[in-house]
């Protein structure tokens, strides 16, 4: 399937979803005014991907910052990944946070509590 790449802007993250290269990444800052509009294509892409996912999907979140209205779409993404994981047990989340940013680290742990996916944590 076609990869989805959305370049980062001042208030939206870089999105790279590429099943052929096996790269799945959301990185940067996320605080657009309309998070649903921004994440809409991401969610649609994952819906399509879930029909025939790779055996292994390592999904990288590397967010420096995200606002409260980004929580829900991020949670939606994780729920979709959890559905894939239920089918093939091949999904992992790499949760990256800026060294010292205990809030982003904790946000990852809180997401991990809510979905059936293994998380690993990495500081950058």
């Amino acid at each position, binding site marked *: 399937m076609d990869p989805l790449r959305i370049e980062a802007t*001042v208030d939206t993250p870089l999105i790279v979803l590429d099943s052929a290269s096996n790269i799945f990444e959301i990185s940067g800052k996320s605080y657009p*005014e309309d998070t649903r509009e921004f994440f809409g294509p991401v969610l649609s892409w994952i819906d399509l991907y879930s029909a025939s996912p790779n055996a292994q999907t390592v999904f990288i979140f590397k967010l420096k910052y995200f606002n*409260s209205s980004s929580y829900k779409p991020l949670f939606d993404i994780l729920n979709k990944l959890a559905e894939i994981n239920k089918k093939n047990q091949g999904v992992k989340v790499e949760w990256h946070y800026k060294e010292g940013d205990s809030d982003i680290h904790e946000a990852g742990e809180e997401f991990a509590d809510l979905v059936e996916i293994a998380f690993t944590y990495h500081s950058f």
Partner: protein
Amino acid sequence: MVETQDNASLLYNWMQECEKENIVLSFKGDFNQDLVNAILLLAERGQNIQNGSTVVRARVFSIMVECMQNIRKYGAVNDGSGELKPGIVLVCRTTDSYSLITGNLVLNEEVASLKAQIDKIKLLNKEELKSLHKSVLTKTELSEKSGAGLGLISIARKSDAMEYQFKQLDDKISFYSVNITVSINSGT
């Protein structure tokens, strides 16, 4: 038209006031997302905000985003255009804390529910806020405009104190101001 000399005293007094109140960043105007981004860039690059720990800086930044986006979402307008949301934002830095103070217009009819929401949040400790955050996030139905109240909960989770005031301006509009404090030692 104001005399040049009056301008000088006005500006000088304002500058002195900023010094006295430890205001490191101030802006008054109509809020849109471009403006929010511009203010955030200033805040990120400004030395006065940079010299805190990573988590404190992130909290200040984060609360600024939530507060300014709240002005965009909930702020009332006084010209009927529906687009321009007037507001004021101040960032103060003392030796032991940051304060973010914002002011904007709200409709009188929304004052009671806003007060009730903030009062409810203020009663909760960090653990209770964490569970509330989780339960709001996992609810499937979200109110369209509110962004599920996660904004207010996030502000409370990331701050050490939150005080508000309302000042009724006329039979339609009130001025709402909120002062949010982040201690320099928070998160340690």
